[in-house]
């Protein structure tokens, strides 16, 4: 169904393109193409000029073929074809449409010859056709191509194009291309070259860096030029260092928000209730598999609404994980309150069984969870490259955190949870049904883990082992941040994520992680109750 729609849309596009370019473009070009093969160098020259004047980008491949020496005249008909050697025969194609015209003996076709002056005008024609194409994307690509090729022949066209350009970003690219051409040309005056260095310095990416570094070390270059280039290089390097640091910070924030998502449910069950739920990771995994199932349903029944699948998956994942959590609380954890180590073992057993159950139902392999269109792609922010997927996860985790804070601070339900956390016997004496509060809190924590699963399904493999990868990190975050304090979890997650990512460039991913683990082990020695410990007068045992 989905593919059918795509096919139809594609066909419509194709028809529209034909309607626009067909009669006006290809038909206009056809006589010019025929002219390329007639009248010797002069005829070809006139045809090339005509193509440049027509301003029709469809002519670009024809001109490129001409430049490469692939354009031939087929003898009896006198029409122009692209002919390339294929064994003993020549394979013929139509230069405009690219359609195959079969094969022919080499003797049947005559190569269209070109000389140096013709070559120049062909290049200029190609350059102007692409640089002046009505499509700004093609113009941008052409400018980038000139920037890379640094071809002096393009300078004239570039200047004309610059004069006409209206799109600011394309104009910028053209100015940079011009600067790079001037810098490369031997004849340009020194002031122009100095200005060119400044223009390039503003662009300040790796390509410019290597270009200018080369210039600053070039023994033949004039001293003033070298000096300017060297100073711009230091500028660029400093700027890059700054953006790199910022980029790492962003990665750290992004990792921190993932940790926050994974740990925040644990902060409720472990932090608030004191229950060590080793099956927490499996709640995350269940959330991810719920996403998978929801997406399968969407794929089967409503592929056009696929972008909404994640939004639908959120409540489903919450409900599934909360339901399973409630069942676990009722059957196992309820009987083990006050025995934290036994709870740890029992929930570990549950996590093994849940993993195997999911493996039996969905198979041991990774399941593919698709990304909706609003989560794919990336954008640039200064020197930062930010993917929408990561951005949404940061936003989502902060939103979940805010919701949880509101739920705990501002609702009756949250009030009862906090009361039971602070003083269980007193809360019970005031008439609260503590077993029910426990059950609801556990369901809440598990449900939040399910929400985390929806987000993690976007960045991680959805496999039965998904939860295992996060359980240790989650515990680290909660313990580091301080038990019984979800603000501590926020700080802990962001701090650990950032430290991890900031260490990575120096120590490597694995060593960085080991370092963080050791750091946490040492940290717990200093503050056995975490960063933000609840103060109390209770003495254990």
């Amino acid at each position: 169904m989905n593919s059918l729609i795509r096919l139809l849309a594609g066909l419509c596009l194709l028809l529209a393109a034909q309607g626009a370019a067909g009669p006006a473009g290809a038909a206009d070009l056809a006589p010019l193409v025929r002219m390329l093969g007639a009248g010797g160098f002069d005829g070809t020259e006139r045809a090339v000029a005509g193509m440049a004047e027509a301003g029709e980008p469809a002519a670009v491949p024809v001109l490129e073929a001409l430049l490469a020496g692939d354009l031939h005249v087929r003898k009896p008909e006198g029409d122009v074809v692209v002919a390339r050697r294929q064994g003993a025969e020549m394979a013929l194609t139509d230069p405009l449409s690219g359609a195959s015209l079969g094969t022919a003996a080499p003797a049947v076709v005559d190569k269209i010859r070109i000389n140096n002056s013709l070559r120049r005008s062909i290049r200029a024609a190609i350059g102007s056709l692409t640089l002046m194409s009505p499509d700004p994307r093609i113009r941008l690509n052409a400018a980038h191509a000139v920037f890379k090729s640094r071809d002096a022949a393009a300078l004239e066209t570039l200047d004309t194009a610059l004069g006409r350009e209206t799109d600011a970003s394309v104009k910028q690219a053209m100015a940079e291309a011009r600067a790079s051409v001037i810098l490369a040309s031997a004849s340009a005056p020194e002031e122009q070259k100095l200005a060119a260095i400044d223009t390039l310095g503003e662009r300040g990416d790796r390509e410019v860096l290597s270009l200018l570094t080369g210039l600053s070390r070039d023994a033949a270059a004039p001293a003033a030029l070298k000096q300017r280039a060297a100073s711009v290089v230091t500028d660029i390097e400093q700027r890059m260092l700054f953006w790199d640091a910022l980029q790492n910070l962003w990665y750290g924030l992004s990792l921190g928000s993932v940790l926050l998502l994974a740990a925040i449910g644990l902060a409720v069950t472990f932090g608030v209730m004191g229950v060590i739920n080793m099956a927490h990771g499996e709640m995350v995994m269940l959330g991810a598999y719920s996403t998978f199932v929801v997406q399968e349903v969407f794929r089967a029944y409503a592929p056009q609404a696929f972008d909404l699948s994640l939004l639908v998956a959120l409540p489903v994942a919450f409900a599934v994980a909360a339901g399973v959590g409630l069942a676990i609380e009722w059957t196992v954890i309820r009987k083990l309150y006050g025995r934290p180590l036994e709870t740890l073992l029992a929930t570990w057993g549950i996590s093994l069984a849940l993993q195997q159950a999911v493996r039996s139902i969905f198979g041991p392999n990774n399941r593919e969870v698709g990304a909706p269109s609003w989560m794919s792609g990336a954008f640039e922010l200064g020197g930062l490259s930010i993917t929408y997927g990561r951005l949404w996860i940061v936003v989502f985790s902060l939103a979940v955190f805010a919701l949880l804070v509101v739920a705990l601070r501002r609702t009756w339900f949250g009030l009862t949870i906090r009361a039971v956390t602070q003083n269980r016997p007193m809360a019970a004496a005031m008439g609260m049904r503590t077993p029910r509060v426990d059950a609801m809190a556990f369901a809440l924590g598990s449900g939040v883990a399910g929400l985390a699963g929806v987000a993690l399904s976007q960045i991680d493999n959805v496999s039965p082992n998904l939860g295992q990868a996060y359980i240790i990190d989650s515990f680290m975050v909660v313990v580091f941040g301080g038990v019984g304090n979800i603000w501590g979890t926020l700080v802990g997650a962001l701090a650990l994520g950032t430290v991890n990512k900031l260490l990575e460039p120096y120590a490597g991913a694995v060593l960085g992680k080991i370092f963080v683990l050791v750091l946490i082990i040492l940290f717990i020695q200093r503050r056995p109750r975490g960063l933000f410990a609840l103060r109390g007068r209770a003495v254990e045992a």
Partner: protein
Amino acid sequence: MRMVLPGGLDRSKLVLPILLLAAAVYVPVAVLLIPEGSPFALSVHSAGLFGKYLCYALLALALDLVWGYCGILSLGHGAFFALGGYAMGMYLMRQIGPRGVYGHPVLPDFMVFLNWQELPWYWYGFNHFPFAALMVLLVPGLLAFAFGWFAFRSRVTGVYLSIITQALTFALLLAFFRNDMGFGGNNGLTDFKEILGFELQAPGTRAALFAATALALALCYLLAAWVVSSKAGKVMTALRDAESRVRFLGYDVERYKLFAWTLSAMMAGLAGALYVPQVGIINPGEFAPAASIEAVIWVAVGGRGTLTGAVIGAVMVNFGKSWFTSAMPEFWLFALGGLFVLVTLYLPRGVLGLVSDLWSRAESHRRRRPDDVPQASP
């Protein structure tokens, strides 16, 4: 009246060591002397399998010493086990000599493969068995001592301690996965040829390894039993049940914990060292937190705080694992998971506790009956 042995040991504590000694004698005989086909004969393979179970039993024993008697639930004992295993693996690796795939006289294959030019300093000495044997005990012991010194002194207890032991083994897991560490990375150490000059694959060597494991387990069991029944052992039990109270009574709680913890880590290291030549490989997988948690359930199944229970539990669960993973592999994790839940919920004292409950019930029943019966007798 119970008979008390010189070391203050209960005579019932001798049952298991005697059984182990009998096994240490019987298994080599059954493997080497009794002809195949006889019902008493044993294949080399099953001797190796039982040897593996006994290594696990030794690990469980070590765990029971700290969990059952000091209340320290370690979720990272696999780290000490694996470190002992790696120390032995390094010795076995050096014994390969020039018989490796690349035929380098000194460097193990993986180092040649990684283009290393010379042996890293921490591999020196491992070609001598006594040095390797010392390291088997020293490396886990020192790590445990350092870890315990900091952790117990800062009064990290309960769940927090469990979680940082898990972090410890997880950090080691990541570290040993790295090729640059010089321990074979992902693949670990394997392709061993001989130990102390004996062919590792030979039935005689396998039988001897089994006997050595059984002997080591018996000795460690006696040592652990002696420790827990000593005065220090009483303090340990007390601090398990009420740590603050023991502290207020003036005992230096940290010292007792540190002693038991270090001893336990060394036993775990020994278990690992005996394990490696019998299974023929040691890789970072042994550091996995899941493996350490699995060891905890062996103790829980057998009965925590009994020593005997740990040995029984380890053998039982691993026997079950072997059976399950060959008969119906997809149900093993259900069975293991169910075991965790059922044992913690319904068998808090393990199989041994169940048996002794049934025993004492039967006993009291029997004792009551003679009082009822007299009227019936003439």
